[in-house]
């Protein structure tokens, strides 16, 4: 069994993590971006913009403000949602909530969305709505519309959320170059390393003068130069050689 170098098999854990990191760089509050980590993965699986779109849109997502999504009008189970010129991925959480609320109250719900970036991505909401117990449909066009009603849940993921189950089973095949670019982008969400930062973990702390704080029986034969000069000693962290 070989592993392709041009197309990578990615599993949900990594796809969610990289999406979360990219979104965390936009200035969105943590309490929001933690709830939209499936967007790029589902989009990719559905043949929509996916991770290429994530890469393309990332710079423009700075300053995103999902609180700009508002209800323009409402009539029973029908509602017009103003997306506030936000990206579809950031409109979808409110969209699914409203579908759920209206379906709970009226038996079914229809929400039309205006003023949204990448409106075709609203299709992702159909799959994510299943997680909230909704059977939804999407109609594309000038006025993209989602309709939903309560779904019968079995308690089995494969039946209730088939796309989620498929992702867990099989992951996704993604162009390697694209993935590593997204990976590189996401890495910017991690803290730059430094001697001081390296004191924020580990069984011992090495002071500037070389003295060590902590017991030395940690049994890991730590190369203390790692803690004194992290940059200089790490030219090649990705290979240990076989």
């Amino acid at each position, binding site marked *: 069994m070989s592993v392709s170098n041009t197309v990578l098999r990615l599993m949900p854990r990594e796809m969610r993590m990289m999406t979360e990191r990219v979104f965390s760089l936009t200035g969105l509050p943590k309490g*929001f971006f933690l709830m939209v980590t499936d967007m790029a993965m589902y989009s990719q699986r559905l043949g929509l913009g996916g991770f290429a779109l994530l890469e393309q849109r990332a710079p423009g997502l700075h300053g995103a403000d999902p609180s700009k999504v508002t209800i323009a009008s409402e009539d029973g189970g029908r509602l017009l949602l103003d997306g506030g010129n936000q990206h579809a991925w950031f409109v979808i959480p409110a969209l699914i909530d409203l579908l759920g609320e209206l379906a709970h109250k009226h038996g079914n719900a229809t929400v039309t969305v205006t003023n949204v970036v990448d409106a075709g991505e609203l299709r992702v909401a159909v799959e994510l709505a299943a997680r909230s117990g909704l059977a939804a449909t999407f109609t594309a066009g000038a006025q993209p519309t989602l309709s939903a009603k309560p779904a019968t849940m079995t308690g089995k993921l494969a039946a209730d959320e088939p796309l989620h*189950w498929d992702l867990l089973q099989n992951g996704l095949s993604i162009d390697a170059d694209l993935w590593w670019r997204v990976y590189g982008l996401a890495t910017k969400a991690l*803290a730059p390393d430094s001697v001081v*930062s390296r004191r924020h*973990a580990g069984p011992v702390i090495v002071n500037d003068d070389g003295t060590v704080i902590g017991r030395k029986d940690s*049994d890991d034969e730590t190369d203390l130069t790692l803690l004194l000069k992290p940059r200089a000693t790490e030219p090649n962290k990705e290979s240990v050689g076989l």
Partner: protein
Amino acid sequence: MRPERLAAIQPGRMSITRSLMNRMVAERWDIRKERFDVDAAGAGTVVYSIKTPRQEFSFIAFSFPPSGKARTGRIIGRAWDMMGTLNEGPATQADIDAVRSEIPKLYRGRATAKSLVWARANRSMRVFDQTLAALASGQQPAVEMLAQVCYLMRNTGLDGNGTFGTRSFPSLGAGHPLGGVLQAQLVTAYLMREYSCDLVEHLASLQSDKAVRLDPAIRRFLGVGNGSALGLIFFIQKHPRLIASWLAAREEAIAKASALPIGKGDARAETLLTLIKRAIAFRREDRVVYESIANSTDIANDLEKVAAALTELYSTGLVDGRGETYPLQALARHLEPRIKSEALETYYSLLLELVPETADALAASVSGVDEVNIVPSQTIGELIELIEAQYQWALDIDMSGPDAHKYIWYKSETAEEPRRGARDEAPEALDLGFDLCGGIQTLLASLRAEKDRKLSVARFLMRHPDDRYLVARIQALRDFAYHSPIANINAENFTPIDLVRLMNAGLHGIDKTRDFLRRNLRGVLYHGAPSPDEIRAGKEGVWAYPAEPRL
């Protein structure tokens, strides 16, 4: 759910390594070394086969000569003495070639679709080398030396559940032999243990014709080391249902054991007393040095009080001179103010041995999906009531003082190492810590500021999108009792090691967890666990708390 109390939980029958090993023995898993091509320098390839009643697995590992350069137990290390993978199915040459090509790349490598776990381990150099020298000279290693750490190699990474392209654990399902919580990782740790012993014996045989193998008693005594730290705090944050599920299952099993009608001369009291005495002996022999954790001598002294109380129960049927409807529960109540939490938790963990079927069934039921969803039609009035009913502890914590936000949790660019430092020392770091206390207080203030208590959560969150995750978490966990430690993790007075101990000792079943700087633990997995021969033979019985071998 106070961290210091969670920290006291001891390894027991419902710890994952213990419950997994019990199942391996009951099902007589067949673990065999299939290939061991390692040269005298320590370089080479090994393959193990693991046959379960339902499925075969393989452990493919590469051995490397130890290097002192860039060596550390921390994740930032770049020198490993072993790297390997646990795969589904028997190992083929193509599998071996694939992992040989990919695993050295680590973060840039890709596991095959068969791969469950990628693993790394380092030798405990002093102990490994002294053991090797002893065996090569035809002698057994000194038990006094071995017992200082109780292992030859230490786990430095068990990555699975989608990391590097490994299989997603939720997709394995309950019918999979390793479908239970963390079981794929922890069976890999067992293979590390076997590998470490096989390696030292193999290298000794290459060094000398006089070489001997490890005495079976020593080999059984040795486990595999483990180092854990701040990353487990993130794990607890991310998996609240799982934590709640395990703690609730354990509490239920303890409650059922505590309710047993134990009377004078009851064999179950005698069994429990025997186990307590075994734990006392284990603690008395413990050579590990602890920093802030209760030391073993003190725990042993307290366990003597437990033993005395059990002796009274066995001899007279009484607890502290009184007849009780539920004597085992009364005994715990009597002892609680008189002994350390670790001793009391040892008692509780050993109680589980009186209800093995119940404990095993409850352990097997532990699960918990990670996703949380909004319940949009709930009114904010209902949400306010829910928060006031379940999170008063978070509302009571003072978040206004300078120390309340002193620390930041983040990950480093290098190796994504979880770190916790003073906020002013990591100005560029994004805060990854989940501030439950601060979040609850802010959320409740926002909810109370709304005039219309019948407003739906859906509409509230449109104006407050930053509260989305917290609201979903609160709603998702409303029926769980034990999901969140009562703590402000950003505060000066929070001790990270407490929750690392919960994970290591309680969930993982790691013995002799010794602490460093209130944030790192070292310990030993599978301490005294059966050998592959014993597993194959179905040798049942309590293997925990092993005595030091006497040769």
